[in-house]
């Protein structure tokens, strides 16, 4: 998912045979100038060939090429790789989730092989360092992935609370609205307050549809007129209306829901859910999350296709988008899960994803 790579299908990590003729393509990067990626397997074969030929000093690019028998491998590739190998430097390894164990095993084997050759103690510790670093990098990727899932789960839970509160309010509002026009002033205030508090709730459920980037929210906030300073005591005793009365656009509010619509409780309580197909591609979401914040392990995470927006805070908000359940949805989900004993929610593919992965993390 992270890389546009193809691995030679006939090669496995256990394949120590040399001279596999006629195998499929090598791994090339997608740079404008295609460069060869020294995958773990390829490097293993290289090392095998070199050892067969009597060590890095004895082997020559030509002989290595002949022994390896890999199509598409040129002398230039081998020359530079051999030079690096001779200097004891490890080429940059490529890891993805499936091959992490292979990678580490390969590194360990290489460690053994290197110790057989003329490498020094420093080379060995450098190898170990490389292994450690790569292990950490991998762990970091895992952490990122899990973090995203957990934030989503929290968001989902929060949404369920908000929706329930909204429904409760709806009930109260209906009752209050039908109570008749003859109310005392305080009652009116109460109703307005509850309606306005409802608006406050709607603010945060409206992320269903459009969620402005976090930076832009500052602009929305600034458009609010500064409130008249209420006396201190009043501030303490009574929850002041969250939005000043005149029906101005409140914060977070998407264009389709306006304050004046609050007059009809039914309108406020049935936000038009976006079409299910509009749920963003979760893979791209993950990539967006990685993309916007420049993380240390950049080479492994540079995908760069679906990023629309560099803003960091987008990620927190966008993460909430695919998961929030609509009220209809959550019932559906509950029902379907009553039938499928403990099967994960089908509507939310992120939940399924980690089960497919072989991760020992959490």
């Amino acid at each position, binding site marked *: 998912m992270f890389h546009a790579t193809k691995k030679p299908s006939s090669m496995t990590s256990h394949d120590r045979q040399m001279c596999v003729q006629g195998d499929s393509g090598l791994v090339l990067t997608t740079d404008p100038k295609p460069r060869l990626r020294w995958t773990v397997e390829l490097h293993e074969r290289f090392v095998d060939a070199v050892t067969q030929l009597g060590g890095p000093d004895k082997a020559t690019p030509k002989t290595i090429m002949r022994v390896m028998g890999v199509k598409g491998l040129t002398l230039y590739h081998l020359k530079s790789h051999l030079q690096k190998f001779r200097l004891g430097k490890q080429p940059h390894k490529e890891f993805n989730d499936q091959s992490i164990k292979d990678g580490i095993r390969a590194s360990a084997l290489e460690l053994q092989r290197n110790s057989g050759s003329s490498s020094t103690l420093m080379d060995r510790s450098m190898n170990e360092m490389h292994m450690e670093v790569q292990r950490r990098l991998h762990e970091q990727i895992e952490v990122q992935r899990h973090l995203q899932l957990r934030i989503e789960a929290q968001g989902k839970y929060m949404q369920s609370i908000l929706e329930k509160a909204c429904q409760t309010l709806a009930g109260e509002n209906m009752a209050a609205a039908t109570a008749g026009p003859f109310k005392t002033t305080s009652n009116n205030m109460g109703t307005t307050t509850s309606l306005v508090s409802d608006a406050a709730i709607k603010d945060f459920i409206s992320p269903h549809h459009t969620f402005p980037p976090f930076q832009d*929210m500052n602009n929305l906030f600034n458009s609010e007129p500064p409130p008249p300073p209420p006396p*201190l005591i009043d501030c303490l005793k009574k929850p002041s209306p969250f939005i000043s009365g005149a029906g101005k656009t409140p914060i977070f509010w998407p264009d389709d829901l306006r304050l004046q619509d609050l007059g009809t409780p039914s309108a406020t309580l049935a936000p038009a859910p976006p079409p299910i197909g509009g749920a963003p591609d979760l893979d791209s979401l993950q990539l967006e999350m990685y993309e916007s914040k420049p993380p240390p392990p950049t080479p492994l995470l540079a995908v760069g296709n679906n990023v629309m927006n560099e803003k960091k805070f987008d990620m927190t908000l966008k993460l909430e988008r695919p998961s929030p359940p609509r009220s209809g949805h959550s019932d559906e989900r509950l029902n379907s899960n009553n039938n499928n004993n403990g099967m994960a929610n089908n509507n939310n593919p992120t939940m399924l994803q980690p089960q497919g992965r072989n991760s020992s993390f959490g």
Partner: protein
Amino acid sequence: MALAINNPFNDIALSNYSTSTNNSDDHRHLAGNWNYSSPIVDWETFSGTHNDFLDVFDSTICIENPPFLTEDRDEEDEFKGLRLYHLLIAAADAVFGDHKSCDLAHVILVRLNELVSPSHGTNLERLTAYYAQAFQDLLDSAPVSNKTHHHNHHIHHRDDHTPTDFLAAFQLLQEMSPYVKFGHFTANQAILEAVAEDRRVHIVDYDIMEGIQWASLMQAFVSSPSAPHLRITAISRGANGRRSIGTVQETGRRLVAFAASIGQPFSFHQCKLDSDESFRPSGLKLVKGEALVVNCMLHLPHFSYRSPESIASFLSGAKSLSPRIVTLVEEEIGHGPTIDGDYKVQFLDSLERYSAIYDSLEAVIPMKNRARALVERVFLGPRISATLRRIGQRRWSTAAMEENCLWGEKLEKMGLKTVKISFANHCQARLLLGLFNDGYRVEELGNNKLVLGWKSKRLLSVSIWGSSTSSSSSSSLSDSE
């Protein structure tokens, strides 16, 4: 007694106080306590045990606005800030000092209320307003001579807030700042690692609130290879329970529904505290073969005040059960042999801390904003009250339990051993903070603590503890490759 409300409080000089009240000796004594000699403050004298306090205070009090002591500001503003500051310290003295004087405190508070309001003004002004309110609460809640403050009928403005206000503020708090998520996720990660190989997990949660911490834990369980059965026992406060969004039962129902929606085997139980809020382990239902986890969230911004006796009884009860792991989240207050007995330093430390929190919120949302005002009103105000109560408790209580300011240290004294924060956990915290403003920092303290801070000020800490008797599995999963 003659309280001169119209007195010359406009001048900062404390020496003026002595002319306006009867307790002139006390004020000079108070003034002496603070080494205060002139209206223009000699800041060095405030440093005392607090090195670089001024720098920290300056740096935390304003991010976008210049510190109130630079020449760029108006003289008036500058003096106003100073005035507020001195008034606060004077109030602290009046309330906590050796010569406690409620009358003086009232006078100071009236003056403060004239100057500031909680909903507009600079960070310092709003913060001061909430401190004034907190002092007021403290004075109102108990008579002067009463040393025991753990009655639950204290005035708590939070209960006046509607559930919708609470929810809105909570949602805002979560989006603006990482405090809640940091505490929850770090604790959850430690729990996950500790019970990685167990089939049944039992969590005892001291203050479950709305249960959101367990949503992400359940999700993690569902996707983990061991997929254990989860049982949560929530400790509830009996008759005095505050209603945040609903009762503990409602939280339980919500969690059950959520667990069902993601396919996590789950059951929920409740355990009531006694009427004096002490915890009896026998009230818990324990099942053999379960990994026992104790979760204690104490000072997250949306949490309410808990009396130290209650917390202490819970922690010692928990320890007696030999849990696999204990996760503790508390505010990171300054502590140490010189500080523990010194209310002044504790007070200033709290001032710094809340300034930092205010600043961290401001960095996300600018000052004159309703959203922030809501969060401040619903959460931070009560938190400030709770902190002052805590300082008061330490000041007036003679119980031995008050020796340690940090509950983590208490756990250590009880004999729990530390559990190292794994690389993965630390990594997760850093990544989480990366989603928020750059000002947040995470650092590892001791060998089992992760501390969240804003700029240079430490705010919230998560510490992990394990029993010396029960076996705890290895922390880092990468070792099990």
